[in-house]
């Protein structure tokens, strides 16, 4: 496949960065998505939010990215918030995988 199946976009506002991910995350692109997220959350940030509202597929391989991110940002002392609306595909997996127990997950 030549076309990426997930897109990562970021908007910075001072010390805050908002990352929006859309599309499908699986074994084929998880590494790329992880690198894309890492590239937009810069060291000077104090707060980061990652919005999964437009993620149409994610499984345990994609969840690994966010568990890693929680650990990384804790070390870097950057506050992280994950956005996953109720009844969205990402919300279901975030809850089953237990991401809610390690990071703030908000519906919007």
């Amino acid at each position: 496949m030549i076309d990426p199946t997930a897109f990562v976009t970021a908007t910075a506002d001072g010390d805050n960065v908002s990352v929006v991910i859309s599309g499908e995350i699986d074994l084929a692109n998880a590494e790329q998505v992880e690198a894309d997220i890492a590239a937009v959350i810069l060291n000077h940030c104090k707060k980061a939010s990652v919005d999964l509202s437009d993620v149409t597929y994610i499984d345990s391989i994609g969840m690994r990215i966010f568990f890693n991110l929680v650990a990384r940002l804790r070390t870097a002392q950057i506050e992280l918030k994950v956005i996953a609306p109720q009844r969205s595909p990402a919300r279901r997996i975030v809850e089953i995988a237990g991401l809610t127990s390690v990071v703030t997950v908000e519906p919007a």
Partner: protein
Amino acid sequence: MDRKLRHFERGEMATVLLAVFEASLSSVTFSAAGHPVPVMVEGDAPACFVDVPIDPPLGVGPPPRRRATTVALEPDTVLCLYTDGLVERRGISLDDRFDLLCESVVRDAPEGVCAKVMSDLIGVEYPKDDVSLLVVRRTDAETYYPLEIHVPAQPSSLREIRAALRRWLASIDAREEEVHDIVVAVGEATANAVEHAYGAAGGTVVVRAELQSDDVFIRISDMGRWRAPRGVGRGRGTLIMETTSDEFRIEHRIDGTDVFLRHHLQR
């Protein structure tokens, strides 16, 4: 594509009509870059142009923000996509040619529609410009069919499996939440097969799904031997399969591994 054209073919310009079909075939999303919009025939209504805003062509001007328009696609709907060579004719107003195209497209088998449009708009004339014509009709399986997919055990197959599974689940009228759950359970099982079943030689993953009354039975098979999971946090996949299914088991055969999933549909 715009960036590629600007970088490698400076000064060139191209028009594009991009159409992306939803896996269930229930809708299609268009984006037009300086390209004429498609014709659609739905139900018994006469053919009409799809209301797609036209953004600038690729390769010229400042890179614009491109718009996408999603339209519902009912069963049997016909879509006609074409290049300007089909409609542009020296000495004849473009509006008249577009009207002629609209009259020409009917809700029929695509081969017949293509032949009719070519006959009505080109006829015996030798066209000056190249002409491409693509006619698509949404046809749904009229009767129930079980699903069987054979794909190479590689990461790029996972997306293909999800698309085929989503189409099949739409054909049996599974609800949205059920589709999410079933697709993710099968996604976990197939990703496992891709990651753990084969070594360097690779192999095949087979997904079979069938509906028995209100239960979906799915079997994901490989011909390899699963090695122990590597890395941390790998138990999450199993947890996801257990939670999103009504029944989940792994069966080790002599010559491979089967993951068996059952999902009860709310009717």
